[in-house]
């Protein structure tokens, strides 16, 4: 009787306390005892893990409960800003989750540790098509976390069906929608939208190609409502903008707020990207980091993440899960499975970003400066500004001269 009460109390405590995930045996059977009290520093994109909000499980808390490892979680907003922080070397991160081309760059600069896959048994959940990708050919440094594709999002009530039916990049260059188009506010993604439209490779090292892409974007700039990143959610959901180019996973998030939105992969081809977990050089707790990576590959954990982030999940245990398929269909978008994994996905022409050599990278950044700093032909404001500067200079001179004269007069009187 006593034992029954005990187990009832245990059950009650479990039910009321933090929710418990039904983790795989492979994840649970590992002996974590020697890691208790370890502090693990994780550096990930913002809003890129199930964190307990919107009815999800808090995965970091679940990991802490399972292993006794304390997770210090920080976020970044672009691969480049992550790179800057990593390079500055103030903090020793144990797990980072950058994108493909940045992983290539980090490998090239010898900034990543080789992973010990014997600590990551759940790696068996990763299907072959997401292994040995170009940025990490031998698959020694990274484990895929999410994947996605870039495409065109448009508002069906504001864009003519026949313009969108083309399924082409041309839509984001269509003057008919002047002031209603949004472009990426980061160089790599923005230039890619022009390069695909022009039929170039996004990994081209030919400067003439970059010039041509720049010209294409400069032509587009007067049509744009703006260069945005996360503001796109607000602007597309509210109907402030009609056309945008962004990531498929985020389209689903916008779609759940506004059912007038639609998405297509442009027929000229588009970018396929993978964000993957790595351990940077200088990590203090490499083995604990590998256990964290392993935890993220657990079928239940990955499912939780896939439903929260809405990006593609490179995990066969999730893709084959009935609940997940139902979630995609019922809660995300009628075509969600097709767009992410199915027929539509298979028919898209894609290219993955590779790490550009330093010269090309510098040249791209220079082109981006050129694009961003140029003005939209709005010269009036300059003339007002220059007029004001001239006026001020005159005013200053007049006042100084007057004061000087007065001082001379004062001196004379004395």
């Amino acid at each position, binding site marked *: 009787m006593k034992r029954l009460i005990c187990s009832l109390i245990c059950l009650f405590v479990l039910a009321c306390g933090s929710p418990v995930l039904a983790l795989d045996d492979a994840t649970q059977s590992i002996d974590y005892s020697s890691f208790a009290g370890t502090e693990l520093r994780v550096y990930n994109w913002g809003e890129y893990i199930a964190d307990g909000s919107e009815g999800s499980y808090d995965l970091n808390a679940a990991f802490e409960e399972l292993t006794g490892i304390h997770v210090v979680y920080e976020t970044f907003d*672009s691969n*480049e*800003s992550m*790179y*800057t922080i990593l*390079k500055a070397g103030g903090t020793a991160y144990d797990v980072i989750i950058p994108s493909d081309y940045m992983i290539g760059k980090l490998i090239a600069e010898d900034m990543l540790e080789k992973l010990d896959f014997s600590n990551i048994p759940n790696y068996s959940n990763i299907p072959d098509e997401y292994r040995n990708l170009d940025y990490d050919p031998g698959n020694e440094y990274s484990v895929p976390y999410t994947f996605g594709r870039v495409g065109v999002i448009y508002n069906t009530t504001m864009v003519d069906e026949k313009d969108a039916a083309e399924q082409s990049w041309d839509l984001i260059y269509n003057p008919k929608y002047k*002031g209603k188009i949004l472009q990426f*506010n*980061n*160089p790599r993604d923005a230039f890619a939208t022009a390069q695909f439209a022009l039929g170039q490779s996004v990994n081209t090292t030919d400067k003439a190609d970059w010039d041509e892409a720049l010209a294409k974007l400069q032509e587009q*700039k007067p049509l*744009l*409502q*703006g*260069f*945005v990143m996360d*503001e796109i959610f*607000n*602007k597309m959901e*509210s*109907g*402030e903008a009609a056309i945008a180019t962004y990531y498929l996973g985020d389209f689903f998030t916008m779609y759940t707020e506004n059912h007038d939105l639609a998405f297509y992969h442009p027929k000229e081809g588009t970018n396929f990207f993978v964000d993957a977990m790595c351990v940077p050089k200088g990590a203090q707790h490499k083995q604990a980091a590998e256990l964290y990576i392993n935890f993220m590959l657990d079928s239940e954990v990955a499912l939780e993440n896939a439903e929260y982030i809405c990006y593609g999940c490179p995990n066969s245990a999730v893709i084959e899960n009935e609940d997940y398929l139902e979630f995609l269909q019922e809660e995300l978008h009628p075509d969600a499975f097709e767009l992410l994994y199915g027929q539509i996905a298979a028919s898209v022409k894609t290219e993955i970003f590779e790490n550009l050599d330093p010269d090309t990278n*510098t040249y791209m*950044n220079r082109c*981006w*400066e*050129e694009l*961003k*700093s*140029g*003005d*939209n032909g*709005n010269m009036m*404001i*300059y003339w*007002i*500004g*220059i007029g*004001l*500067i001239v006026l*001020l200079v005159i005013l*200053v001179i007049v*006042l*100084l001269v007057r004061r000087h004269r007065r001082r001379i007069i004062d001196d004379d009187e004395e």
Partner: protein
Amino acid sequence: MNRPVFRKFAAAPHIVWAALFIAAPLAFVVYYAFTDEAGAFTLSNMSALVTSPNYRAIFLRSISYALIATVICLVIAYPVAYIISRSRVRAQSTMILLIMLPMWMNLLIRTYSWMVIIQDTGFLNGILSAVGLPNLHIINTPGAVILGMVYNYLPYMILPIYSVMVKIDNRLIEAAHDLGAGGVQVLFRVIFPLSISGVISGITMVFVPSISTFYISQKMGGGSYDMIGDAIERQFMNNYNYNLGASMSLVLMILILVCMAVMNRFSDEDTGGVIV
């Protein structure tokens, strides 16, 4: 107590602080501005700023926008400060409180709210449509960027002007009237000269943050009207070009220093007011 010794040590914390957080970073900025990636001395960062039409455009744009914002702030703030300083004491503190109130909110939140208010399908146009007036296109124009700066920095103009004006002796104004001066004459020959130190420090306090702002131009201008701050941020966070970023910061600092030096010439002797 041995006074000189005490005096020596009383300043020590500040000297340490200043060395660590003012002098050292400044030295780093100068170091990066005049070196290349390998750490060798170079003037190429500086010359890039002068020769590139892009950076010239950015600097000119920043100065123009900041000047326009400063002038607008001054035009709005001067009468407001005057009215407040001439009202009853209790009303004064209420009004000053109301002016300070928005500053208790974060600048990012205030700017983001403005975005939602003035966008094409925003709050403002919603009201205009409801009353049957034509809609205004404000967001993503230079005007929107300047509006953002004026809104965010207006209190910094009102407060110093008010604090000087409130000290102006009413009897001086009465005396001027008694001696036959008209309203305009009193304003320009009595009130304005007496409040000049407040005006100068107000101008400095609005102009300096305006010219170096970066968030406002990105959000209100849709990323199409970059200011120096945006360009600097991009060099550090995106291009990983500390050297060019540092040289831009240095030029910006020199620009601000020159402006402040000119400003100070007008206030150093007259009143010795509240110069920052």
